[in-house]
């Protein structure tokens, strides 16, 4: 193989690898953030109840450690609302994201629900946050 062929082959490999690696790397980066001791990062995706509801629908947070909830919606506009903690993201259009930062101060179980009437099954679009020591 001559030089041109090698260059062409290198380019081909790069073209296939760079996008794959950046998506994989982004995933790793997300995981790394979740492991951060200082902040607890949780990604939550909203799906209409017919499509599975909140994902995940149960999350656990540690008391006293700052929490960062990153909420996206996958199909229609949803909203993230935890009445007992006084948290509300407002409407989140599909493909957009909202970030809520707070410090859980008491242990217990708190229900979160969707604040935008998103479908027939809107009422059942609920999940729970458990705050532990």
């Amino acid at each position, binding site marked *: 193989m001559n030089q*041109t062929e090698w260059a*062409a082959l290198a380019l*081909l490999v790069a073209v*296939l690898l760079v*996008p794959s690696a950046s*998506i994989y790397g982004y995933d790793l980066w997300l995981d790394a953030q979740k492991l951060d001791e200082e902040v607890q990062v949780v990604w939550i995706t909203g799906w209409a109840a017919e499509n599975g509801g909140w994902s995940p629908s149960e999350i656990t947070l540690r008391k006293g450690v700052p929490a960062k909830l990153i909420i996206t919606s996958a199909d229609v506009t949803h909203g993230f609302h935890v009445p007992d903690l006084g948290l509300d993201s407002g409407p989140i259009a599909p*493909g957009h*994201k909202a970030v809520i930062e707070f410090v859980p101060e008491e242990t217990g179980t708190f229900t979160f629900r969707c604040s935008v009437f998103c479908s027939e099954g809107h009422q059942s679009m609920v999940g729970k946050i458990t705050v532990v020591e």
Partner: protein
Amino acid sequence: MAATRWHVRDFFSSLILHRGKFDLLQIGIINRLLKHRAFQYAAMMVNLFVFWVIILSGFFGSPVGNRNISIVFVWILWWFALIVLMVPLLSRIWCTMCPLPAFGEWLERRALVKKRSAFKYLSLRKPWPSKLNNIWLQNLGFLAIATFSALLVTRPVVTAIVLLILFVVPVFLVLIYSRRVFCRFICPVGGFLGLFSMFSALELRPKDKTLCRNHMTKECVRGNDNGYGCPWIIYPGGLERNNYCGLCFECIKTCPYNNLALNLRSFGGDILAKTGRALDEAWKSFIMLTLAGLYILVMQGPWGVLKDWSNVFWAPPYGWALTGVGGFLPYVGIFWGLSLAVTPSVFFLFTGASKLASGVRSVPLKKLFIDFSYELIPLALMAWIAFSIPLLLVNWSYIVNALLDPVGLGWNVFSGLYVPWTPLIPAVIPYLQSIVLAVGLAYSIKYSYRLAKQNFPEGKAALKAFLPQVVFLTFVSMIFLWLFMG
């Protein structure tokens, strides 16, 4: 500067001298570019990158169609560029840069750029079955994909899966049959690219056919040190139509006499070419014409029940009698029945009327039916262009947003920047569509008469045979006009 001026003058003089044609290869830079071995590789590479990102984003990106580039780039940007710009202006130029068959081609040649000796091809080189030496597979494949289009164009993951399949299949076909059999006989896009490229303003043709005929070594077919033999399995020296030339530009590299020209020409030139006409291509016209209407009806019309049906397994929870699979089946029936049976039958009746009207009995009805079907090409192409106009004008903002946030996961390169959905001149769209339709109709009428004249050279017979065709074309156009404006 002087060189430019020379070309401008040259352009006009060639238009006059060569019956309105201008050979782009006369322009030095184009000539050098297309003869460069790395040209096609580079063009494919750009699109390979784009399509690879599209596939990844389809699998791992946002499931929201209008936030994911797999939907936005493929079904708005690529589709629009393909059908509105590339096909009418530059023939099968898409096939020059299409990444789908790239892996197969590189594997068979065991080279990316350079020319390898013919003895080293990696392929069983089995002959393609002669029964399938037509575009029927492409006709059915396109119809099958079109039936599921509502899923395909709205679910990123479906688009990604289909693209992945279209990347893998050609590799196997190459290993068994060699060369571009995928493109010639299978690719669902290839079928209509071939048909519509007959209308294009660009053609690749031998300059002097006698020279080709007398050239014993036929290097454009067998290949030489400069390039491969025609990968599309045609004889470039005998080209009369664009249909199955994928503009890979190997032949302009191999021809020792520089006997090939890449001509700009007037629209629709190939419709009158008598070679290669057959029923498979006739049906391609019927399918394309019918599907253009159905797509406009289903996707751009106000009839909710059609959308429910097209959405395959989706059933809205509030009372439609026929939804989900129960509605999808009649929908499939409408798609296949109309394009394979109803449109051809109506057209057959009008062709019968043409034959009766002409008063000439010696021309076989079947030949007339096939020949006249080529008049539908301009109208069908323009109907598809009309369908595609609102895709871009209404949804252009999705493209910008997708560029800002390629996988729709909120990466948002320029954080916070987001273009709200704002249709561009939406109230003018129906008028634009009608004008495009009228252009197609005028071309179809023009070619209808010329096709009639080919079959009835004598006296007034051609005129009489042509009138029923005008009625048919007007009737079809009125249906489209109603969809746009009524």
